[in-house]
């Protein structure tokens, strides 16, 4: 043991040097990555109040991931570059003692991070989406999936469109989709609104979205009602266009759909 102490002084200073160099490289990489991430639009423009909340959650998680990502990345890269040896191993060095408390400290930090993301943006995001309270919708739209099209009923307007090619919605109204299926499992997804809920035969599922931007499929392909759950041959093309209009225009649309159905 005596000889070990004397010999350890040399390695100890080089350990400190490597640690310092690593920390500097990590901080630099983190700064660079923060700059890149904060300048990146991860999500395409949204079209609903919910989209803003979900995209914000995404952005927050991306920023939070940066220091973790760079820590491991720089750790791997630094080791590979600095600690590589060209030839086969000669005599192996005496083992270094494992520094005490590193594992415990690591677990404390990662636990704190994990609990943090559970709360925010996990639970806070769900709260912001209004999932913990009973918000009243302004409009109820019933959607029934079948292989491979959507049947849409606008509640309170007496309008049902079988095998709909278009879903029309008013702007700034909280819309509740009540969803089911005639045959197999489908999934209602409107990418622009960041809303998705499965259409399950035998039960009704619900999801809310509040469109806040006028738009249509022709201008933005994310304005589409898309089946997101594998449902057979026609799955990829099980879509309907989505159009968001002002309330007055929406009322006109409903009237003309009603007239069409009456004829």
């Amino acid at each position, binding site marked *: 043991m005596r000889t070990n102490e004397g010999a350890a002084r040399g390695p100890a200073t080089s350990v400190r040097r490597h640690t310092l160099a690593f920390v500097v490289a990590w901080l630099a990489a983190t700064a660079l990555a923060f700059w890149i991430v904060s300048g990146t639009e991860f999500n395409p423009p949204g079209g609903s109040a919910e989209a803003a909340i*979900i995209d914000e959650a995404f952005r927050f998680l991306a920023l939070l991931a940066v220091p973790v990502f760079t820590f491991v990345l720089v750790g791997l890269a630094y080791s590979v570059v600095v600690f590589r040896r060209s030839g086969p191993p000669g005599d192996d060095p005496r083992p270094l003692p494992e520094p005490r408390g590193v594992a415990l400290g690591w677990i404390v930090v*990662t636990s704190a991070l*994990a609990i943090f993301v559970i709360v925010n943006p996990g639970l806070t*995001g769900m709260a912001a989406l209004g999932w913990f309270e009973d918000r009243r919708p302004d409009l109820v739209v019933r959607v029934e999936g079948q292989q491979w099209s959507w049947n849409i009923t606008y509640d309170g307007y007496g309008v049902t469109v079988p095998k709909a090619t278009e879903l029309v919605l008013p702007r700034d109204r909280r819309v509740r989709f009540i969803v089911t299926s005639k045959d197999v499992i489908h999934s209602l997804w409107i990418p622009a609104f960041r809303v998705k809920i499965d259409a399950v035969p035998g039960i009704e599922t619900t999801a809310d979205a509040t469109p806040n931007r006028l738009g249509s499929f022709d201008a933005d392909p994310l304005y589409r009602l898309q089946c*997101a759950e594998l449902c057979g041959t026609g799955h990829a093309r099980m879509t309907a266009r989505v159009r968001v209009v002002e309330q007055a225009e929406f009322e006109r649309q409903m009237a003309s759909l009603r007239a069409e159905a009456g004829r």
Partner: protein
Amino acid sequence: MIRGLAGALAGYAVGAALVAAIRALTGVDPLAAEPLVVAGFPFALIGWLLGVGVWQAWAREWVGLDARPAAPPGWRRYFAYSTDHKVIGVQYLVTFTVIFLLAGLSALLLRVELAAPGQAILPPATYNQVMSLHGILMIAVAVSVIIAGFGNYLVPLLIGAEDMAFPRLNALSYWLIPPVALLLLTSTVLGGWDSGWTGYAPLSERNRVGQIFFNLSFILVGLSSIIGGLNFLVTIIRLRAPGMTWGRLPIFVWGIFLTSLMSAVFTQSVAVAMLLTLLDRVFGTGFFAAARGGSPLLYENLFWFYSHPAVYVMIIPGWVLALEVLPHFARRALFAYRWAVGGLAGVVALSGVVWIHHMFTSGVPFVFLPVFLATTELISIPTGVIFLSALGTLWLGRLWLRTPMLFAIAVFFNFLIGGITGIFLADVPTDVQLQDTYFVVAHFHYTIVGGEIFGLFAGIYYWFPKITGRMYDERLGQLHFWWMFIAFNLTFFPMFGLGLAGMNRRIADYDAALANTNLFVSIASFALGASFLVFLWNVIVSWTRGPMAQANPWRARTLEWQTSSPPPLENFPVPPTVVAGPYEYGTGRAHAVLGGAAGGDD
């Protein structure tokens, strides 16, 4: 094998005739396809197993005859029923490597179709079938290749045992696999099935007859995996060499132990889901059919209750293989060994309580969402410990960057991306958008291919000299690594972007706005496919003509390197005694000595 096929046909004839007769007597159409297949199947399976070697080497004893060893000598033993764990390990490895390459080819077919919007070579129905086939083949590879291949070959060696605890069961679990390949092939000939590897009911109860072959083969893979898992558990508990305490167990063995625990506990659940689907189809029961009072969500719950733990059955062997390689090529102890074992155990413990994260948008009762959000995010804590162990082992080591080491380090780079993107999928609000998109496709390919399959290749190169007795070509090995590593990232990283841009998964066609990225991904996927040609060339040439390998070319401490390459039948000339930990480089003390005497040196 011919005898096995004959046995299978005979068995099938018996089973099918039985059912046809019963149906004829009760006055229903005696030749309906599905009941005949489903009823003939167990008989065919028994016929196959008896024919392939179970009768010769095992079942003769049941009727008072002497069992005969079925394995011929030389290379032909790899094609015959053998109870030697090393032969079975090689059989598993080669079988699944071949299936992996075939499933990879099917992925290339998909990428040809997706290279441009519109229809190129695959009509939508065919696309769905190829996609489903790709999925289940790769899942079968991923749940079995490391644990059954390297696990079988190495666990007895690493713990200083002569063989597995139940050599006959071990052979049985391997010979359940060829019928799986046969079933899936038959299904494809009959037009396949189109419900993906998840086989969600009620789609799987309404589609074509090919579906039942999927369900039957899933049950078989599961059976093989349960038997294998029990065998590993007993082997590791009972057959460790003297002195091989739990604290001296190589991390790879710990990983196989904990993985086997999951296989043995969770697999039944998916088998039940598959079986109930068959009952719904064939006997008109209503477990998953809403119109008959059943619940499609029940299927999803049963399915994911197994299939989430299954992703750890896939990834933990990849992690521990990489962790096993690191110390030998960094010439120092595995960092925080005890914590790493604890981390693996933590992942296993949590794996059973997170499955709903696959169902956040499925319509499950709302109360589940915050709970499973929390349990899922918590898994990042034990996972983080695995990363600590890897980083700590590399840090201040003396890294000898041979091909196995490169693959092992890449496991942690790839899984870093796979793991971090997993956080976005576990967080309910972001998952609402990302679920069922290419973001998910990218994420799980980063974890399973980037994590497990890179680990598999680390193992193949690391143990190649041990298994074959010959050395692979190092230059070709490194070429394979860099080629595969770069092409893999070019293929799968852009898929995150596709998902964010609104491309959902499992679609034969997509919006024209995504054309450029998809073309890029398709080209990269062909580069990825081509990298395996380098691998194949290296393996074939080296296995037949490579230079003879020494017993311990890596100067590694663990037990498999303390015997000849390849090891003799029953592994060690004299039973070893373990006297120190497996990774104590630089201490001058050996891990084990052959024979009972304690002490000795390197």
